[in-house]
């Protein structure tokens, strides 16, 4: 088992021949992962709802072993984009969000077409790894 540390589930199953029992395992893992993704997206939608020019995206995939990604972004016309956690309710939602996801990245860049400053919050829920 220790030879497979760091290996994804697909590789592990291929090498150990557990394909017959894999479907149920994948379904359970996938359901848990997707629930986390949906919860994370819901929190971001609620938080970014009141912001002008904000949008939340979530890209669904079917594979339980793959990482799932989503993002929320804000942009304005004036070269400045921001979001704020400034009351207990937003603080509670932010803490819940950070409990659900496995990694986040904050990115700022200029949209090449519109030239607007875009602030993006990327998040990731990892697929299963040993």
């Amino acid at each position, binding site marked *: 088992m220790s030879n497979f540390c760091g290996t994804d589930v697909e590789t592990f199953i291929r090498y150990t021949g557990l394909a017959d029992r894999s479907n149920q395992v994948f379904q359970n893992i996938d359901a848990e992962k997707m629930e986390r993704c949906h919860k994370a997206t819901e929190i971001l939608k609620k938080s970014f709802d009141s912001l002008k020019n904000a949008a939340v995206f979530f890209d669904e995939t079917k594979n339980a072993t793959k990482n799932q990604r989503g993002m929320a972004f804000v942009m304005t016309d004036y*070269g*400045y*984009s*921001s*979001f*704020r*956690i*400034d009351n207990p309710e937003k*603080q509670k939602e*932010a*803490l819940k969000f*950070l*409990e659900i*996801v*496995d*990694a*986040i*990245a*904050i*990115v*700022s*860049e*200029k949209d090449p077409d519109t030239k607007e*400053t*875009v*602030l993006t*919050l990327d998040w990731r829920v990892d697929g299963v790894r040993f």
Partner: protein
Amino acid sequence: MVSDFDEVFSEGMTAEERLYNAIFGKPIPEWEGYAIPRIEKFRRFQKASEVFNRLFQNSSTVNKFFYKPEPFQDACGGSVRIYPEGDCESLAVFENREALSELSELIKLVDELEVSAEEMLDGSTSIEISWYIKDPFEGKPES
């Protein structure tokens, strides 16, 4: 700077009294009802500063600033500005459970956290992450 708030050990004094003594160089007066909540503000500032330093200690493209409360009645906080590396976008990454826990700890300690992206003079964009701890008597008369 954070070491300014190190406690001076003195037998028979509470932790709050020791910290007040360390900051002002005199014993806390009995009637000083404003001191204890402000001491709590300083404690939070000290912890938040430590967490903030740990979160951004390894990055070469950051400038960190701390706003110490001076005078004593002020709000306090810190901020970090992250610049792009080369032609890439500016990035602040929290890619493991430890980093996310530190970020959660910072959010719990402060009253306000803001993340912003701003266009710079050369056309690139930078990220600023700022946090503030309000004075507990902000907007209220002290007399």
